[in-house]
């Protein structure tokens, strides 16, 4: 993209010159008031849709199964739906998932700011990402005073879309890809991959890493974590080394979805062109397209009611199938816990059970943490869900075999245990 596309020439000369990686979006906003005004709207959005929307409703309340599934991990304490970009800073500072005790080796690292602030590109440039990530969240806080903003996506001056997150750059490189050769339409998706991707913190330096070396499909990511021997936490009383998936929208959408294969980008749906008098600009008021389907879908689909209806049909089917997977996982967890408590359990079988539990739950989470309730790639969502359920049931069966006790095979434990 950078290599193929000349910097845009604009009819209007910029009013002010913007410093490279300028963190203050208001300064950019002098030149681009429409974009800046629309970005600011993300702060106060709070309309909800059937499965998402812009309020910070609690997923743990909406689906209490997730409290069980994340037991022993901060996500079981606090996990809300995402809100607009301008709230990123407020929300990351408010979440109960943080551990602000700098003496604790499990303290929250600065890395958690990586996707929340327009200060980052400047800071990374200044100190390098390794140094940034090695600091604690607390230590970093004074440096961070802007939520997500222009510098996270644009190059000052040319306004071209760029990869600003070093982790993305490295992950693409590991796959032999050079984003500077991407087309403009590709960049309209890749720029979101600065943040809307599965990540983990590598090593004691908490180095931000995207697990893409083997590819971005769910099984390729699992195989990467297997090779790295990585786990996020150990499931209490079950002993399973768990993996947590986080917002893999990019990986999900690009895994051969209808829209991705048709050349549609994230920005097409989430940042549709809107009119401001005569001029058109990309709405920077990024939120669920179901809130403005006329703009978001209507540019391509003439029958807007029809496509909105389709989203509902797809999401309903995905939501039901997802709950079935959760129920199967909870049955498996209960069984593994019981088996683990039994000193006579066959260790090999129990470990097999854990391996399947780990894999099944990551698969389910990959779909569940993806924020479109399957719409970004319906077939992939359902295929993964089917596999997660199958593996969870097999995990349960192995746990029962490990202690030779069929009473571990009870199903629907979520509904029957108090």
């Amino acid at each position: 993209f950078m290599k193929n596309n000349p910097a845009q020439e604009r009819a209007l000369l910029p009013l002010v010159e913007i410093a490279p990686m300028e963190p203050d979006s208001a300064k950019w906003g002098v030149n681009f008031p429409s974009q800046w005004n629309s970005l600011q709207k993300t702060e106060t959005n709070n309309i909800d849709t059937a499965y998402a929307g812009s309020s910070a409703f609690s997923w743990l309340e909406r689906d209490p199964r997730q409290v069980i599934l994340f037991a022993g991990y901060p996500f079981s304490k606090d996990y809300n739906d995402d809100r607009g970009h301008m709230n990123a800073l407020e929300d990351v500072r408010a979440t109960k998932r943080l551990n602000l005790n700098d003496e604790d080796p499990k303290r929250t690292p600065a890395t958690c700011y990586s996707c929340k602030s327009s200060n980052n590109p400047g800071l990374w440039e200044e100190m390098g990402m390794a140094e940034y990530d090695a600091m604690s969240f607390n230590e970093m806080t004074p440096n961070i005073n802007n939520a997500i903003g222009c510098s996270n996506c644009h190059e000052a001056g040319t306004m071209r879309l760029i990869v600003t997150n070093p982790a993305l750059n490295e992950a693409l490189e590991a796959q032999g890809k050079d984003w500077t050769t991407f087309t403009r339409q590709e960049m309209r998706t890749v720029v979101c991959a600065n943040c809307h991707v599965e990540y983990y913190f590598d090593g004691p330096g908490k180095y931000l890493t995207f697990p893409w070396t083997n590819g971005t499909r769910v099984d390729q990511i699992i195989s990467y974590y297997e090779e790295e021997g990585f786990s996020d936490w150990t499931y209490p009383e079950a002993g399973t080394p768990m993996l947590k998936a986080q917002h893999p929208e990019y990986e999900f959408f690009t895994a051969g979805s209808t829209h991705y294969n048709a050349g549609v980008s994230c920005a097409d749906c989430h940042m549709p062109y809107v009119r401001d008098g005569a001029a058109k600009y990309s709405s920077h008021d990024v939120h669920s397209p179901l809130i403005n389907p006329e703009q978001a879908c209507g540019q391509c689909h003439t029958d807007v009611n029809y496509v909105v209806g389709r989203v509902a049909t797809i999401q309903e089917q995905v939501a039901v199938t997802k709950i079935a997977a959760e129920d199967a996982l909870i049955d498996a967890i209960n069984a593994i816990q019981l088996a683990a408590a039994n000193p006579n359990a066959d260790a090999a079988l129990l470990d097999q059970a854990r391996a399947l539990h780990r894999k099944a739950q990551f698969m389910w989470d990959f779909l569940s943490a993806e924020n479109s309730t399957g719409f970004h790639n319906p077939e992939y969502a359902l295929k993964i869900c089917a596999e997660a359920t199958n593996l969870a049931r097999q995990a349960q069966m192995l746990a029962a075999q490990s202690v030779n006790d069929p009473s571990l095979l009870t199903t629907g434990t979520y509904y029957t245990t108090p």
Partner: protein
Amino acid sequence: MKNFPLSLPVLAALACFGLAMGVFVWTSDALAYAGTRAETCNNCHVMHPMYENYYHAAHEQWAECADCHLPHENVFSYYFEKGRQGMHDVYVFSTGATPELIRANEHSQEIIQGNCIRCHNETVETVMMGPQPYDRNCWDCHRAVSHGERGLSTSPYQDSSLYPVK
């Protein structure tokens, strides 16, 4: 009312009005709106995506906007509809009430469908099966025929060579 009193002031007023209209029509090229050139419709920039897509689609060399969008049963319905639609478009445009998505209403869909059949009668005779009600539009299948690949794209990058998509 037996004698129509054509007083001088009235006549003068009418003449002035006529002259003013004439000048208006001459200078503004308003008569073009009585014609059929596609470029005329494109005078309104909100019609631009339709024009662009039309220009690059199959009918550019065969049909003007009016060939599809105005009824052709007889000259009266043609000009009546032209006037009605034109007034509507101008009204909406000048009051700034242009909707985000412009869509053909049911009435104009009927007109368009009639025109498809008018030109392609021979082709579709067998499948139209005479006067049997045809409960879907030709462009339900021929989605690209009038305004580009995916119905009507109003997003600039899709219809402008300035912004190559790939």
